[in-house]
């Protein structure tokens, strides 16, 4: 029996096991929307397409599955671009379906026409314009395959309206075979043995773990390696949660807002084992002085990440999971004859000494509420058992520094692109995936206003996301830079004209709380987290608190401004 393109699309989604997609209808996708009620795929109607793509992204990060969003042509499609670039920067598997004007009108400046395939070429892993309804099922199969394999990423499928209406036989391909796409997954065993030799020789080894460990699901292998071989672990922002945050070997983040211990360890280590991390400039500081005494091993599934920013002595192109599993297998045999703990004791003591000397801290010396204190309280109350999403800026860094992530997929944050407005819709996607989990968006008063319209989506879909606004009345991170490097010229960063967030929450049908005194922080958070609907907690924090430690842009990691 022949099906329409729209029917075929939904059959494909069912075949892929998609249970939910986030979207916003329009003329160019109305045929698909006509079929949604007849399928098993749930649709969540957002209030802005940016909300749809971030929600799909948050769903993907929290579950490890592919997130899906559906939008119309033209403005519907372009409104997703920020979210697509966000997912691309952080290698998140998302498939975006966009409507397109009928093929006969493509290129004619038709109403709501835009070349979304052209626009998103640089920020998708791959994209398609479906030109023949007989290619639709194969294209969708490839899109999902590309999104989740190799280095994951967003894949866009543009669907002309006439394709959605045309008839074709539906047959979903069982396998994907693409002669041009065969990512390297397995490590070269010779290189693995070389790494083990280096590990045995190293006196001051350090693991530098990135988001690739989480994406590949290799946190257990990483944790085994760190704990069994007694190697301290530092992490990128994206890698938080891959190694238990409360373990003594964990040093926290490195880089611009990394810990003193992590940055000193990088500077002094003799072997840096980078796993699924790409040496971002926020991590390396001045590249010439990064890990000056170390042999660098770099494990990454993406060959372009290797040798891009820093010179690597041992490259290892592979998925982190089989690579770390191979390292585990090769070192397991050494445990009887080789005393890793004794060999690394001096180094571990030194690193832990640095951590004691300059722990992550803040001066809690005023009557006001310190934002770090709020994050600490969130950790205490949740005991680390929550999914934390963040916006971007100071709130993001405090959420990274003062909450301990013990499990992967529990921190959803725009690391690569730094997208303000990401956290709330991402939290919404995660909450849909885990309805019984506590999902908290740690926000700033500036960035929460970028996608605040999704309050309506969470309320009517009964997604009880908790938003905690660290409200300092500033675009805080830019203000911090202005304070430190631009002689306090606070141009365009003061945001003290703002809505009444409590009333705003209530207007949407959510609950609102405001905290202005330190003594009320904990009890209000406890109360808010118990409310069985979406909540905004507006906490008025110290206005000019800064994120420390801080390595000024372009400086070496050892040139830290401490509290």
């Amino acid at each position: 029996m022949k099906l329409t393109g729209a029917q075929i699309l939904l059959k494909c989604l069912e075949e892929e096991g998609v249970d939910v997609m986030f979207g916003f209808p329009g003329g160019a996708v109305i045929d698909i929307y006509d079929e949604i009620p007849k399928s098993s795929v749930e649709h969540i109607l957002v209030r802005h397409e940016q909300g749809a793509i971030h929600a799909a992204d948050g769903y993907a990060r929290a579950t490890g599955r592919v997130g899906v969003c559906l939008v119309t042509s033209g403005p519907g499609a372009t409104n997703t671009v920020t979210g697509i670039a966000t997912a691309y920067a952080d290698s998140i598997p998302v498939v975006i379906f966009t409507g397109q004007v009928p093929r006969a009108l493509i290129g004619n400046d038709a109403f709501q026409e835009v070349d979304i395939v052209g626009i998103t070429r640089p920020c998708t892993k791959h994209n398609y314009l479906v030109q023949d309804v007989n290619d639709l099922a194969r294209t969708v199969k490839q899109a999902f395959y590309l999104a989740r394999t190799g280095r994951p990423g967003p894949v866009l499928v543009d669907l002309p309206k006439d394709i959605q209406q045309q008839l074709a036989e539906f047959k979903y391909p069982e396998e994907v075979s693409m002669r041009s796409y065969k990512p390297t997954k397995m490590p070269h065993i010779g290189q693995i043995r070389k790494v083990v030799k280096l590990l045995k020789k190293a006196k001051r080894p350090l693991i530098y773990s990135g988001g690739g460990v989480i994406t590949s699901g290799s946190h257990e292998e990483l944790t085994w390696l760190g704990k069994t071989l007694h190697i301290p672990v530092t992490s990128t922002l994206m890698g938080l949660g891959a190694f238990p945050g409360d373990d003594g070997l964990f040093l926290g983040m490195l880089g611009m807002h990394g810990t003193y211990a992590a940055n000193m360890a990088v500077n002094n280590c003799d072997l840096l084992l980078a796993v699924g991390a790409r040496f971002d400039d926020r991590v390396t500081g001045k590249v010439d002085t990064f890990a000056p005494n170390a042999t660098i091993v770099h494990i990454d599934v993406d060959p372009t990440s290797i040798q891009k920013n820093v010179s690597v002595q041992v490259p290892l192109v592979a998925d982190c999971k089989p690579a770390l599993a191979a390292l585990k297998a090769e070192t397991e045999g050494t445990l009887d004859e080789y005393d890793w703990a004794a060999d690394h004791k001096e180094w571990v003591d030194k690193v832990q000494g640095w951590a004691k000397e300059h722990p992550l801290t803040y001066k809690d010396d005023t009557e006001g509420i310190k934002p770090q204190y709020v994050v600490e309280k969130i950790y205490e109350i949740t005991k680390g058992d929550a999914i934390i999403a963040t916006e971007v800026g100071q709130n993001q860094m405090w959420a990274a520094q003062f909450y301990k992530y013990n499990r992967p997929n529990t921190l959803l944050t725009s690391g690569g692109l730094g997208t303000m407005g990401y956290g709330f819709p991402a939290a919404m996607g995660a909450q849909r995936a885990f309805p019984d989990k506590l999902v908290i968006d740690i926000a700033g008063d500036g960035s929460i206003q970028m996608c605040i319209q999704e309050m309506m989506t969470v309320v009517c879909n009964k997604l009880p996301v908790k938003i905690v606004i660290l409200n300092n009345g500033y675009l805080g991170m830019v203000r911090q830079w202005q304070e430190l490097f631009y002689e306090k010229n606070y141009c365009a960063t003061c945001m003290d004209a703002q809505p009444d967030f409590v009333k705003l929450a209530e207007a949407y049908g959510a609950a609102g709380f405001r905290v202005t005194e330190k003594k009320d922080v904990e009890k209000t958070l406890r109360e808010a987290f118990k409310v069985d609907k979406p909540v905004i907690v507006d906490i008025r924090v110290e206005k000019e608190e800064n994120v420390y430690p801080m390595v000024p842009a372009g400086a070496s990691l050892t040139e830290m401004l401490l509290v």
Partner: protein
Amino acid sequence: MSKHTLSVMVENEPGVLSRVAGLFSGRGFNIYSLNVAPTLEKGVSLMTIVAEGDDAIVEQIVKQLRKLVPTIKVKDLTELKSVEREMVLLKVNAEDSKRAEILRIVDIFRCKVVDVSVDELTIEVTGDQGKIGALVNLLTRFGIKEIARTGNVAMRRSMQIDL
């Protein structure tokens, strides 16, 4: 900075040229010339790209090209023994007094005259960059009115050993 000749085999699908060109422009890499045409294999095109950059930049270019989903194979021919050719059409001023000399040059360089008018000659030349450079130098003094170049096409030599 040096020139590298890259041979890139790609799926012949819509937008592939734009994907490749976009990769260069999006990362600030410079394309010196780019030639693309179908191969014997159905659905496969071969691009010959001459790009400028130091070794680190070219290594990134090669990796980024390999990362593109429609890319089947990338070879940097610069380090290999290869044959490189470009076809150029040149329209040269050729009054009566100069015509014989121009034709002599055409003969020496084994070019072809493909169009003649009262005071112009259009010359087709095929060769490597050295030959074409030399010919352009020689003809410049007569006045080259127009030039159209295909950009390099290149192929790895079968024998890679020094004889």
